[in-house]
């Protein structure tokens, strides 16, 4: 077998010699799982837009660093008034957009005003809700006045939705994005790849890559061979389930980081019998988180007991509340008058954590008498049926937005959860800036969700990155969904 392989390989060595190049590399092919619907980060919620463009093509006043910290970007520095309402940003000079036009304070005002306008299509208008007015002091200075002090304002300005665009090109960004970043957009082969090349006159630290291609690989099955054959050199968001395929291979660097993704078994709280607390608790007791993490996430991922990332400073460990206990679950079902079990559906969106986790959960719930029919759905259907119409019993999804515990207080959110006590805590939290008080409120909120067993809390989604071992500078964690390539280079 080995010999056979050698002979075959030798026979075609000539091909290999022709096709491979030994020059020092300045190009990179990155695999991304989803294709962006368009290329304007200020006009869409899709994470895939940021994965391609954030920090590479577009820059904001501030930016988020590899570990979630706020860093200066187009704003060289800033000052905050004492009442916390006025931010004065000092901008970098000599910055040019990729179309050659100069960047100035006017562009900042334009971008922020555009994002918060009534007819704005910005997906995160909430980020700009507190802005009262934006004033151009001079070409290199901008003053932003807030309606109320906002602790997260600088962080907000680092979001992809808050990047600075040029009035000249803003409307065309969906097809031909023009930013100020170190890379400029070159081409987009729909359904296949998006190519960026090094920008001609970049104001900041020079980047070492000349050309970056984001190749769209939705299938984990295709990702593994593409990686193994060297066609694609990096998958910053690799399917955890496939990680065993490349783990231990010295050619690759496998990085397990954290995300803000709480992976949960969502429950339709208004739909009988899930409106009964005992039923929801029974489900929580029936779940074996270790088996789920092992089976659906290659053993990666930290169990959670409520809706909060274990990495968060306000995290409370509630995983002990519902240990895996089949008897207890059956007992609770009996209390709920469902000792003979019942049937329900489990709608599963495409990611492997949902599809694989769903099979395991269905098997675990079957053990306590709940017979689940698995209904795989595409994202579009999931959004339509589950998220919008709330036509579901159970579903599995990872909520990847950071600090999003407030979703449980939203009216009409797809959990159909309604708890005035919880709503009050969230309302109070929104008006509180005192760290200790916030920690206490968040703790209470987590406890309520856990006690109510609103959903089945599973685990924090890991961020698995796999890339060529010779590649340096890619983010290990995912504080936001982005592929910052500014520090990426090949070593030899």
């Amino acid at each position: 077998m080995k010999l056979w392989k050698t002979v075959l390989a030798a026979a075609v060595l000539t091909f290999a010699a022709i096709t491979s190049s030994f020059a020092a590399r300045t190009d990179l092919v990155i695999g991304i799982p989803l294709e962006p619907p368009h290329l304007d980060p200020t006009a869409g919620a899709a994470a895939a837009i940021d994965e391609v463009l954030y920090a590479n093509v577009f820059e904001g006043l501030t930016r988020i660093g590899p570990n979630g910290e706020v860093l200066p970007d187009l704003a060289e520095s800033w000052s905050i008034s004492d009442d916390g309402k006025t931010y004065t940003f000092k901008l970098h000079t000599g910055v040019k957009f990729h179309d050659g036009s100069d960047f100035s304070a006017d562009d900042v005002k334009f971008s922020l005003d555009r994002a918060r306008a009534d007819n704005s299509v910005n997906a995160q208008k909430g980020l700009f809700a507190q802005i009262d007015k934006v004033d151009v002091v001079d070409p290199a200075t901008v003053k932003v006045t807030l309606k109320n002090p906002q602790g997260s304002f600088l962080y907000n300005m680092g979001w992809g939705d808050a990047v600075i665009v040029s009035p000249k090109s803003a409307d065309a960004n969906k097809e031909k994005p023009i930013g100020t970043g170190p890379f400029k957009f070159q081409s987009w082969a729909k359904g296949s790849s998006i190519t960026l090349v090094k920008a001609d006159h970049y104001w900041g630290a020079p980047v070492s890559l000349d050309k970056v291609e984001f190749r769209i690989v939705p299938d984990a099955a295709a990702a593994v061979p593409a990686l193994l054959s060297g066609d694609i050199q990096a998958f910053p968001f690799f399917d955890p389930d496939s990680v065993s395929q490349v783990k231990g291979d010295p050619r690759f660097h496998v990085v397990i980081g954290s995300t803000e993704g709480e992976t949960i078994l969502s429950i339709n709280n208004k739909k009988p019998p899930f409106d009964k607390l005992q039923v929801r608790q029974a489900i929580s007791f029936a779940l074996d988180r270790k088996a789920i993490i092992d089976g659906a996430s290659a053993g990666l991922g930290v169990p959670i007991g409520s809706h909060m990332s274990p990495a968060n400073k306000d995290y409370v460990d509630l995983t002990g509340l519902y240990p895996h206990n089949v008897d207890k679950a059956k007992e609770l079902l009996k209390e709920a008058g469902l000792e003979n079990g019942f049937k329900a559906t489990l709608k599963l969106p495409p990611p492997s954590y949902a599809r694989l986790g769903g099979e395991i959960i269905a098997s675990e719930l079957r053990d306590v008498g709940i017979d689940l029919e698995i209904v795989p759905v595409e994202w579009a259907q999931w959004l339509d049926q589950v998220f919008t119409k709330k036509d579901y019993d159970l579903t599995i999804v990872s909520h990847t937005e950071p600090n999003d515990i407030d979703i449980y207080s939203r009216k009409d959110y797809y959990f159909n959860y309604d708890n005035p006590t919880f709503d009050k805590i969230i309302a109070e939290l929104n008006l509180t800036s005192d760290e200790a008080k916030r920690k206490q409120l968040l703790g209470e909120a987590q406890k309520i969700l856990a006690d109510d067993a609103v959903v089945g809390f599973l685990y924090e989604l890991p961020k698995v990155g796999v890339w060529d071992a010779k590649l340096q500078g890619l983010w290990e964690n995912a504080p936001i969904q982005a592929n910052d390539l500014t520090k990426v280079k090949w070593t030899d």
Partner: protein
Amino acid sequence: MTAYLAKRLIIAAVTLVLASMVVFAVMEILPGDPARLMLGFNASADQVELLRNQMGLNAPLVLRYLHWAGGLLSLDFGRSYTYSVPVVDLVRERVVVSLPLALIALALSTVIAIPVGVFSAGRQGRAGDTLAMGAAQLGVAVPNFWFALMLIYLFAVWLRLVPAGGFPGWNAGVWPALKSLLLPAVALALPQAAILARVARSALIEVLNEDYIRTARAKGLPYSAVLWRHALRNAMIPVLTILGLQFAFLLAGTIIIENVFYLPGLGRLVFQAITQRDLIVVESVVMLLVAAVIAVNLLVDFSYAVVDPRLRGRQ
């Protein structure tokens, strides 16, 4: 000749129109509101309604069909809901992948199948025939996607001879582009070649039993000359029929194969569009594929007339 061709042409046109109605009707009953999909979940009902009006989704059914069908005729397929670019642009980018892929696969399967069929028919019942037809039986039984997986691991992962998938684009040069189409084409072609070889063989054997083969032999032509000069052309009709059917099969096969090799072709476009409920893309691409199948079948009908003078009528 004209009457035959005219009849085939009319049938093809009628089929095309009926097919367009079916496609349109199916799209109408597909669940999922494209306007809501475009705007996302945070959009209000009013915004959705506004967009629905803009997109013409509220117009009467017949008007929408006529508008759509009229657009198809003038190559105006509308704009993709998800990409918000003209569908025709998307299609243009994809056709340059799918069409060469299908053609290479078709050529490959023909080039493999016909000689094997002739070889087997000439040695009917002997060891060579048994061996070739055994292999063909096996080829017919292999699911192409499984075969594709095995090919990827053998040639791309293990031997690293060809890319595991993806398409560098024709701009990257003809050879790299062809190289990335090689494995998918083989995966598509081999099972089809197996079917075609079997058909070619049985058609040839049937023809070889005809009286005119004996006439040709009685003229003093050696067996091989009879096989190539007299039998093959007569056996072409069933072979052409299968080739026509295979084109449709290859087109459909590209849906899975393009997914396995993540080639940015029409098959993957339509598969993605189905999952994303990008109806306008789905209906356009499906129509295009259907039109291609109809066109190929028409071509097959025409080629019957070329091969078989009896269809050309009295001169």
